[in-house]
């Protein structure tokens, strides 16, 4: 039986993309799998009794070493902010390519804590900073120093000791360009080194909290229980900075979503599902309920989504518990068709993610196809005809063409880059100034504009001729030829409409990172948790691959 890939017109809608969940394809899980055989070491731990100072952690294999260099600093409570406008953080980090010399550490000590206004070199690969969850961190220090373990209920409400507020890579602030490392065997998936940084930061937070507690009361203090550590992740606050990324990297977006779609198609095409495969799937579904019930958020928007997800997952468990027989042919296809008819988008994508759990042989090869050689597709095939261009638009953007951009509500917002922080922002076109400096992120509107121009163009046959008199449409012509080859490269929605939820764009990206527990703080930023339940570095040699569904906090 042949199953068709799902229609991009459905899957690439923002509401659907904003319902995606982590899966085996997610970058933090594929990072752990890739680096599980590497030697982990804490090379330097030079903190004072309050936990301030430097530390270095590394992964090494053969002649390759990656070192996380950490700088923990004292800041005042009123200086602590997760917003991108902050200038000081509790800790700052960089992933150094190789073993840092003392000279490197001295140089980095001057630059890394400054973050965006510091300068890194080609020897550094990623850069980040993080703030304590003060309430949780202080509580844990207090309890450990008294010889007790912390209150699990408090920990479960937050899920981490620190949260990062940005993770930079790929040439930002002088960091190494991606081309310098992309051919390394271990970098065969996107954001590998960003994931490594976050993972090692997590370990630093445990070591720091133990260290501070010990110095507070050396005779009585105990270490944070390893099981508790394992059930803590690292938080992350994410704002709009992430949203334009998925618009600006269409072939990369395609490769992420296409991998997910191919995995689902192949699973639906499995004729006979083995018992151990169905058992694992059912086990993960049932155990994952903890992830939903421990998903805390003050966001009404997300609370409704979680409520519906929980209701639908229970309905689904009921469906597979009672009359369902995995020995029937194509049982995963039956499950998928049932989901489409019976449950919400959030639940469909939740179960799709879990369907991948038993099938390493399907997901592993796909992980290596999730990067993109973007430059290969940059050149516009300008010798092609305008008729071809028009046909592609009609075929690939049929829903977009139905949007009426003469209506004010459909062009309500505009994307811009703030002068203060050089970060993307979204504002009301009719109430704020600056729309004349709009970024080219209104793809739907510009596609429609191109299409209307094509309908009114006569006596011109090639794209080259068209571009010579319509240079303002060049960026969008390029995209149309990209979407011709890459069906999932375009968000099939209006990114400047009145009702846009930018957090849907953030959530799409974060789900591929492997984030859990999306906690929107507004429609423009959210908090998440990464690596919660993940093995600790000294457990990597032999760990439970389904750790995501085995958390107990």
């Amino acid at each position, binding site marked *: 039986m042949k199953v068709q890939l799902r229609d991009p017109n459905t899957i690439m809608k923002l509401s659907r993309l904003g319902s995606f969940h982590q899966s085996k394809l997610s970058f933090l899980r594929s990072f752990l799998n890739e680096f599980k055989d590497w030697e982990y070491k804490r090379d330097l731990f030079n903190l004072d009794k309050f936990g301030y100072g430097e530390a270095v952690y590394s992964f090494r294999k053969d002649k390759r070493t990656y070192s996380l260099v950490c700088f923990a600093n004292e800041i005042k409570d009123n200086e602590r902010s997760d917003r991108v406008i902050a200038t000081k953080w509790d800790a700052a980090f960089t992933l150094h390519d190789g073993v840092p010399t003392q000279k490197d550490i001295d140089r980095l000590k001057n630059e890394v804590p400054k973050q965006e206004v510091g300068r890194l070199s080609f020897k550094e690969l990623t850069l980040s900073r993080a703030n304590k969850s003060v309430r949780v961190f202080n509580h844990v220090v207090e309890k450990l120093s008294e010889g007790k373990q912390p209150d699990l209920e408090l920990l479960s409400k937050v899920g981490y000791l620190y949260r990062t507020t940005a993770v930079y890579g790929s040439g930002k602030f002088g*960091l190494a360009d991606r081309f310098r490392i992309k051919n390394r065997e271990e970098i065969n998936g996107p954001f590998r080194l960003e994931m490594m940084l976050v993972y090692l930061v997590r370990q630093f937070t445990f070591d720091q909290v133990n260290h501070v507690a010990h110095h507070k009361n050396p005779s009585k203090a105990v270490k944070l229980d390893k099981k508790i550590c394992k059930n803590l992740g690292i938080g992350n606050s994410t704002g709009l900075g992430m949203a334009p990324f998925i618009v600006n990297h269409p072939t990369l977006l395609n490769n992420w979503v296409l991998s997910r779609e191919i995995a689902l198609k192949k699973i639906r095409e499995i004729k006979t599902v083995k018992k151990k495969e169905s058992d694992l799937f059912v086990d993960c579904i049932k155990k994952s309920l903890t992830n939903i019930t421990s998903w805390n958020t003050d966001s009404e928007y997300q609370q409704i989504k979680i409520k519906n997800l929980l209701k639908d997952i229970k309905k689904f468990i009921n469906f597979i518990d009672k009359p369902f027989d995995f020995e029937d042919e194509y049982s995963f296809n039956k499950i998928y068709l049932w989901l489409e008819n019976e449950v919400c988008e959030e639940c469909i994508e939740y179960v799709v993610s879990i369907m991948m759990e038993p099938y390493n042989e399907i997901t592993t090869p796909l992980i290596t196809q999730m990067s993109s050689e973007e430059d290969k597709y940059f050149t516009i095939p*300008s010798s092609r005809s305008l008729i071809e261009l028009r046909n592609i638009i009609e075929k690939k953007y049929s829903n977009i063409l139905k949007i009426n951009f003469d209506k004010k509500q459909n062009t309500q917002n505009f994307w811009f880059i703030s002068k203060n922080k050089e970060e993307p922002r979204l504002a009301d076109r009719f109430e704020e100034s600056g729309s004349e400096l709009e970024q080219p992120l209104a793809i739907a509107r510009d596609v429609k504009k191109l299409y209307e121009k094509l309908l009114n163009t006569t006596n011109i046959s090639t794209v*080259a001729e068209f*571009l010579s008199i319509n*240079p*303002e449409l*060049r960026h969008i012509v*390029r995209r149309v030829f990209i979407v011709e080859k890459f069906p999932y490269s375009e968000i099939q929605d209006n990114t400047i409409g009145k009702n846009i939820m930018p957090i849907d764009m953030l959530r799409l990206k974060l789900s591929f990172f492997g984030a859990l527990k999306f906690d929107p703080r507004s429609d423009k930023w959210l908090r998440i948790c990464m690596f919660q339940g993940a093995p600790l570095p000294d457990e990597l040699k032999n760990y439970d691959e389904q750790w995501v569904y085995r958390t107990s906090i």
Partner: protein
Amino acid sequence: MKSLSEIETTAKRASKAVGFSWGESEEIGKCIRQLEMFGLPGIKHLNSYFHDKIKNNYENLSLINQSNSSPSSPYCPIILGIGFLDQLKTLENYKKIYFSNIAYPILFLSFLSRSSEIIGKKINVKFDKKEILLNLNVNIYSNVLELEFPKNSKNLEINFVENKDNFSDEEWRSLYKLSENTFVEETDSLKKGAAGAGLTDND
């Protein structure tokens, strides 16, 4: 040191700021990145061109012919470069293309370098006694690397170099003969047993 990613992004944004469209600015960002990667002064010349652009007029040539001349004001190297990329399939039919009066020829070179990769042929460029070989966008070979690139070129000639060997048949034969000294002369026994395939394949 600035990363290539920073160079591309800043060149793109600056290009938009001086009036190029987003699509054109994307092309400029890519080309300046490429020049800098080859060790050529892309940022320096782009910066200088944008400052001159405020005071001077430049001719936007959108339809390129075999021979192109702009007696009054110099051609804008960027519009010329983008036009060259777009019309490449047609232009390739000319063996040589001539331009007179181009501003900042190094900026035009970056587009020609990309063109070389797209058509899979080397492109030879001559201007003002300078000679440059654009090698499939893998590298740029030039006799002017140490010199200052001019702000203006009076006459510029482009040759599409047909794909052919850079050496004579005799030189090849001589080298090939040497390489044969790594081969083993086959005896009858080796002919029968060493290849792996069957002796009769009539099945």
